[in-house]
């Protein structure tokens, strides 16, 4: 992937943002953010509420004019070429609603009428599992159905890039999983997805690459696995044993940084790359009788805490 970027014009980044800045009065929302989104990937902008995710995304969509910095989407300037851009992108906005008494079908038909080359609305509703709700008023839809309709509207013009802002916020876990599958389906059709989320689990499961943004600044960028390796190289094994010699055995293992707890529940921390293998080796070699065993691998949530010094749910 990385090599083709240099050899082919076709794989120029779909979105290129450099040194984006935006303030509302004295409040600086975005303080110099730069990143690129490649064709065909799901790119996530993650961070707590108020970090500048939505402002960044809305500048990229052409809904807000940046104070300074350069943005290019599909080779277009989102401010200057907003009309041309609107035909080629699809957006789902945070906290957007439709008229309470508009039906699902009417919304899709209205949106289809607004674009030059819309896809078949009924087929889209089938794909999003809204076939049975076509005659339903927007106000009667469940949270998940509303989001699926808003995704349908974002896809009606067969866009090349789809923007999804906090699309599963407020949904129950099952509805969330359905939406994740839909987003993967969008990628499978060759589209680029740019999303924001404050849910680290969502970013971890869905995104090919994530950019962590905090207080208007981009803190780091990479695949979820890269970020975890880079910032949280430690893993934890928790096991239960009554063997009194066990703590000493584990302390002697390579790569182990700390062993806490006594006979009973023992917590072992060490290098993520080989901690589990080492612990299992130790257990086998000394025939320690283990009654419970679990590993705690670091997640993006831990990465966030590590590099910003505060939890995402602040």
């Amino acid at each position, binding site marked *: 992937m990385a090599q083709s970027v240099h050899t082919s014009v076709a794989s120029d980044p779909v979105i290129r943002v450099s040194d984006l800045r935006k303030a509302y009065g004295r409040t600086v929302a975005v303080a110099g953010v730069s990143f690129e989104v490649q064709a065909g990937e799901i790119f996530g902008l993650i961070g707590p509420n108020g970090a500048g995710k939505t402002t960044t995304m809305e500048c990229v969509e052409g809904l807000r004019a940046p104070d300074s910095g350069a943005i290019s989407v599909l080779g277009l300037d989102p401010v200057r070429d907003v009309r041309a851009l609107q035909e080629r992108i699809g957006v789902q906005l945070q906290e*957007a609603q439709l*008229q309470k008494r508009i039906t699902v079908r009417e919304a899709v*038909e209205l949106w289809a009428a*607004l*674009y030059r080359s819309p896809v078949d609305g009924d087929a889209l509703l089938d794909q999003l599992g809204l076939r049975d709700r076509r005659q339903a008023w927007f106000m009667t839809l469940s949270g998940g159905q509303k989001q699926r309709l808003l995704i349908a509207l974002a896809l009606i013009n067969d866009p090349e890039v789809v923007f999804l802002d906090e699309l599963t916020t407020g949904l129950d876990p099952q509805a969330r999983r359905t939406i994740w599958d839909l987003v993967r389906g969008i990628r499978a059709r060759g589209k680029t997805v740019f999303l924001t989320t404050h849910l680290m689990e969502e970013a971890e499961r869905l995104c090919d690459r994530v950019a962590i943004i905090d207080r208007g600044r981009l803190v780091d960028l990479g695949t979820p696995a890269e970020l975890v390796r880079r910032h949280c190289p430690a893993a934890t094994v928790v096991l239960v044993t009554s063997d009194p010699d066990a703590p000493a055995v584990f302390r002697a293992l390579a790569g182990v940084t700390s062993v806490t707890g006594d006979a009973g529940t023992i917590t072992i921390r060490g290098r993520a790359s080989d901690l589990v293998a080492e612990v299992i080796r130790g257990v086998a070699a000394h025939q320690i009788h283990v009654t419970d065993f679990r590993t705690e691998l670091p997640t993006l949530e831990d990465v966030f805490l590590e590099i910003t010094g505060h939890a995402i749910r602040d």
Partner: protein
Amino acid sequence: MLRGLWRLTWLEIKIFVREPLGVIGTVAMPVVIFLVLSRLTGRQTSAADAALPAAPSDLPVIVAMLVAVSAVLSLVAIMAIYREGGILKRLRATPLRPHTILAAHVLVKLLFSALTLVALAVAGRQLVPDGADVPWLSFGAAVLFSTGCILSLGFVIASVVPTARFAQPFGAVVLYPMLGLSGLFFPVDALPGGLQAAARLLPLTYAVSLQRGIWRGDTWVSHGGDVAVLLLVCALCVAVSARVFRWE
């Protein structure tokens, strides 16, 4: 430019009709109030007609202006609800332009204002003396034209008013004084100097002058000044609202 206007207008008509309270309040209530009031006051006014020379002939203008003002308030409220609910925000990210959205709502308001006025005219036809030569079509055109221009005031208010809760009172505070000074209830010439000057700056004064003149059988040409002022106000309001329109 106005891509989606007809579809959006038709859609908004359907959506409006789906809220029973809105239709009852807009079309049915004025007719009911009109009928009740005319029953209650009918006997006395027929005897007192001579004492109130302007009242009977001005009734259609008063009714038309009240319907226009309520249409403006309703337009302002709907836009505020759409803004507060994030509906405008979502529409913004489509090729729809603010003026298409406003124009669709103006067409809906004009349609239901016309329905209300027709219903009122039917209900009040016995108040018009038999054989009176009333220029119905011309008056209808004057009412629709001036209502359209008055609705453009709603454009400006609707473009900036922040919340739905604030929209109705704000609109009322702007519009009712204008209505009071419009010459509808007191002749503009009878007002004190300062208020007279104010009345001549307000668009509703010209709407009243146009409608009253046409109802009394004047030609449109003799009210060219009123038409010109109303068109100017409309153009001005459209231009201002284009600058100050807020999507969220």
